């Protein structure tokens, strides 16, 4: 039961239920209600009654019966139009990837230029060519939907076709058409189903709109759109006649929409992972004053689903000390650092007996200015950690202008000085550039400059070199070392790379599965004087990197 409910989410169940109910109505109503719907001669324009639940129209026909009978024609037309959009669209969108490149570019450009038009414009053209009729409305809306299917199929095919398993299949000599049926369709089938559901909803509403203005179904046939337009002239006296087909249109639209949303969620289980509201820490112990800059006692971080990520971790960082925190991904080192910076994700819960930087209690908010200026932050991937929409000058001087009341010019001056300190050429010009105009190494140096601009007491550097080239890595590490020596700034340096940490840190904490398993001085690490087997394994997996010739790797 619960298993079934997990597989079929609520929108999908509701959507499928609505669509199934409509399908039943579409099949049954024309057999049983045709007479009530089409027979003239009842009392015209009668109010709702036991005999006619929604009253009768101007010719004495039952309003409800007509709306129900119209279901079959409306749904069949929408189904036909969807098929007419989907089949050619999918074939075009997928096949361009199996043809020559020039042809592909040409076809995709043509598709792009037609996707730009509202589909109704295309539909009007086709309705104009074929004249107003049921069939031309279906063809018009169907053909108008082809470009969207082609475009989306092509986008998805592109991402699948460049994936490893297709490449592998091609290298193994699997014929292209077989790649298409065997590998491609199962991978793009799901998203296409979602697109099919939403384009069914769209086709239904658009065909009805053509019928509504008189370009679709012609009398004596009727669909919901036609019923609605017939109701308009008497809408003042008989609003009920308009409400019945409106309600049917809305029900069908909602049903198809829910089905599409539900399918999308069903096919993408990651998007519906249950999320729980975060709680704030409740442990209240007054932190004893010590000479350490950073004091963490009994830090516990818990994921939304209750999984503990950090189990009661305690550590200290002295003023001016460089402490490395190493471990593989998932060991909880970044979670520890981000909890210390009070930048943990919304979904996790952070609790600690003490979580202190200087005199700042990081378990609590407030004191924003002190937090912003005392703690400098350097993140892993500079290309993702800077706002792509803002110029560097604006975002990197933000702490200076917001918290240190600097005017824009003074803040930019300070940052330019900082840029020069980390050897960024053409510093003035960089301020007016956007992040995408700089290389990753250059960006990381701008972030370091910005983190240093407030003379912080602590820098938290979360894998600052991982996304960088090896040569750039060494340069960034050298600069961090120099900053530490010049300004006595403490650094918490997070890395999965023992070699990098060995080159930089005074003291190294090895983290494994949410706990610290070993603490080493840099000398112990250099001498490979480690006791914990996990640390040994990490060492075995690490090539060495040295910043100075003095600290060469021990060949043992």
């Amino acid at each position, binding site marked *: 039961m619960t298993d079934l409910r997990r597989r079929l989410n609520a929108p999908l169940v509701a959507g499928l239920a609505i669509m199934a109910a409509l399908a039943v109505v579409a099949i049954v109503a024309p057999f049983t209600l045709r007479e009530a719907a089409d027979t003239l001669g009842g009392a015209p324009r009668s109010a709702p009654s036991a005999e006619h639940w929604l009253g009768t129209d101007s010719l004495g026909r039952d309003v409800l019966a007509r709306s129900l009978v119209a279901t079959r024609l409306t749904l069949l037309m929408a189904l036909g139009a969807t098929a007419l959009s989907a089949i050619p669209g999918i074939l075009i969108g997928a096949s361009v990837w199996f043809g020559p490149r020039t042809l*592909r570019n*040409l076809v995709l*450009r*043509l598709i*792009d*230029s037609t*996707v*730009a*038009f*509202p589909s*109704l*414009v295309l*539909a*009007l*053209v086709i*309705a*104009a*060519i074929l*004249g*107003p009729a049921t069939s031309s409305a279906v063809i018009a809306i169907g053909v108008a939907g082809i470009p969207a299917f082609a475009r989306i199929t092509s986008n998805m095919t592109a991402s699948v076709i460049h994936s490893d398993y297709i490449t592998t299949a091609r290298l193994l000599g699997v014929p292209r058409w077989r790649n298409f049926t065997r590998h491609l369709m199962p991978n793009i089938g799901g998203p296409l189903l979602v697109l099919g559901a939403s384009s069914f909803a769209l086709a239904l*509403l658009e065909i009805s*709109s053509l019928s*509504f*203005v008189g*370009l679709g179904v012609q009398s004596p046939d009727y669909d919901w*759109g036609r019923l*609605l*337009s017939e109701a*308009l002239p008497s*809408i*003042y006296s008989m*609003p009920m006649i308009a409400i019945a087909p*409106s309600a049917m*249109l*809305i029900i069908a639209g909602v049903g*198809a*929409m*829910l089905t599409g949303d539900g399918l999308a969620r069903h096919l993408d289980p990651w998007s519906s992972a*249950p*999320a729980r*509201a975060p709680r704030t820490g409740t442990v209240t112990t007054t932190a004893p004053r010590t000479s350490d800059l950073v004091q963490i006692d009994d830090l516990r971080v818990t994921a939304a689903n209750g999984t503990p990520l950090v189990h009661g971790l305690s550590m200290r960082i002295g003023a001016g000390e460089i402490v490395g925190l190493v471990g593989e991904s998932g060991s909880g080192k970044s979670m520890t650092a*981000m909890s210390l910076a009070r*930048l943990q994700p919304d*979904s996790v819960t952070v609790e600690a007996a003490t979580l202190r930087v200087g005199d700042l209690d990081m378990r609590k908010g407030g004191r924003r200015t002190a937090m*912003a200026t005392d703690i400098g932050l350097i*993140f*892993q*991937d500079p290309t*993702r*950690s*800077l*706002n*792509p*929409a*803002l110029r560097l000058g604006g975002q990197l001087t*933000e702490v200076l202008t*917001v*918290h240190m009341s600097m005017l824009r010019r003074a803040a930019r001056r300070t940052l330019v000085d900082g840029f020069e300190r980390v050897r960024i050429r053409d510093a003035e010009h960089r301020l007016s550039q*956007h992040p995408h105009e700089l290389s990753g190494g250059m960006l990381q140096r701008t*972030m370091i400059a910005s983190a240093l601009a407030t003379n912080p007491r602590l820098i938290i550097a979360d894998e600052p070199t991982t996304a960088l080239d090896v040569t750039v890595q060494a340069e960034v590490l050298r600069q961090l070392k120099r900053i530490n020596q010049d300004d006595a700034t403490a650094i918490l340096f997070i890395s999965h790379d023992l070699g990098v940490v060995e080159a930089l840190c005074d003291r190294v904490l090895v983290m494994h599965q949410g706990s610290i398993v070993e603490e080493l001085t840099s000398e112990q690490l250099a001498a490979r004087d480690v006791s914990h087997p996990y640390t040994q394994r990490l060492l075995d997996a690490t090539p060495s990197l040295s910043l100075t010739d003095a600290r060469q790797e021990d060949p043992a």
Partner: protein
Amino acid sequence: MTTVETGLRGVGTRLGRSAWGGFALRRGGGLLLSIAVLVLLTFLIVPLIPGDPAAAILGADATPEAIAAMRERLGLDEPLPAQFVDYLRGLVTGDLGTSFHYGIPVTETIATKLGYTTTIAFGAIIVVLAVAIPLGMAVGVLTRGGRRPGLATTFGAVAGFLASFPSYVAATVLIIVFAIQLGWLPAGGASSTQAYILPIAALALGPTFAVARVVRQETYNVMQQDFMRTARGRRISAARLHLRHALPNLLASTLTLAGIILASLLGGAIIIETVFNLPGLGTEVVSAIIYRDYPVIQGIVLTIGLIAIAINLAIDVILGIIDPRTITAVSHD
């Protein structure tokens, strides 16, 4: 086509390093192609009519002489390329032909009707953006990371329901409520400013909630980005965090997705004029199709298509201003 493109690219590199220069050249090529497709499409309406277009236009009772005269008038006896050249010549000189029905130039018909359609279409676009972005963003911020699950569910249900309201159904419901039951607003016509309120509301309702859903989802996406954590690390106020750091990125992704919704609003405008008795392009093109007044159909389809192209271009330019990455080259690979 490819030689033209290569040529353009060559000019582009020579023109200088300005990203906008490259954007203008690249987007200009796409623009020309869109216009070419549109012109070809409208031209093909008449030749593609099944059977003899002249006979189809005149109906079953037409005499052979009348049909011959119509063929002559439409230039159907000429070969297709010659007809196309004639059509292009007309377009270039601003001659869209003469209405069969009214006997006046199509350009005049369009000029008198255009205002009604653009008023409700652009009015609705403004309403959609002005409501959907703050609404979607507010809900997105309030319900991020699984907070306030009740609000998230309510918004999802209500917005999903309203987003699937087609404009003509919304129009019917609005007329029943505000014009008939409450009597606050006129149900149709274009005699006063108030007469535009219901059409714009009906047209904007569905797209507003469709776009608001997109904005909420994009808010979630943007809030999870690394650069938002960086911004939080600067301990700035919530207002500054959301308006200065999240909004521009949100707008970029939203506009990309919402562009299609906004352009399709034009289609809704065409349909909705009928409900409100607005004498705009929509009412006109529908009756032109019923009366088989082909010059008018071609002229109006061309006009609406050009407006759609203009909307798309405007969105691309705005995107380029908000997020400069979008104006650098993209290829189909």
